[in-house]
């Protein structure tokens, strides 16, 4: 498992520690009064089918660029103190961490709103693709709710 690093936008194969990532973000400012965390994890079923294997692929450079844009816009538009986004690629086991978004603000309201916005924006704009293998075969997921 990998600890938080200096970069607040990362795409990596390695797992991450949610606790370490939160502790790292708390160091951003002594004025943080609220933190919201979204953690996406590997589900066991997809459309009623049991998933045997999960894999994520991304477009390097563009994916990092889009995540950095989400972070910058989120901080600016919602008046956050800080935000971090970590997304894993490659093979993911069921139940494993996939994506982590941490939003930090002076108060809770802006962190809730920004966190929900950020994961929706990630799904809409960031070139990352999920491949699921079920009993029916292998499929590149076209969209997720």
């Amino acid at each position, binding site marked *: 498992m990998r600890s938080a690093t200096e970069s607040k936008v990362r795409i990596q194969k390695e797992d991450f520690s949610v606790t370490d990532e939160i502790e790292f973000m708390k160091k951003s400012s002594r004025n943080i009064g609220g933190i919201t965390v979204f953690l*996406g994890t590997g589900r066991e079923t997809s459309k009623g089918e049991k998933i045997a294997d999960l894999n994520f692929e991304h477009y390097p450079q*563009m994916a990092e660029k889009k995540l950095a844009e989400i972070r910058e816009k989120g901080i600016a538009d919602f008046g956050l103190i800080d935000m971090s986004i970590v997304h894993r690629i490659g093979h993911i086991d069921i139940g494993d961490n996939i994506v982590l978004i941490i939003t930090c603000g002076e108060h809770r309201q802006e962190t809730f709103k920004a966190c929900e916005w950020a994961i929706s924006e990630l*799904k809409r704009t960031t070139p990352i693709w999920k491949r699921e293998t079920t009993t029916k075969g292998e499929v590149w997921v076209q969209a997720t709710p």
Partner: protein
Amino acid sequence: MITVKYFANLKQIAGKDEERFDLGKETTLDQVWEAISQTLPQIATLIKEKKIMVAVNYDVVSLDAVVHDGDEIALLPPFSGGS
């Protein structure tokens, strides 16, 4: 040279993750699709049916964009990151 990159199911269809075309100093995406259709008609069809987004140098562009020698064009199936 223009580099065209394929991802996810498009990479499987193409059997490669990128290819290069020499289309002069400046060209249109329509001409790039024409070049792709010579060997990968299935992908050209998906582009014409607007089932794929297109990025040039890491930004999504409209299909009437002009591209230049050295540009990187990415064909992007619908995204499914997150979880």
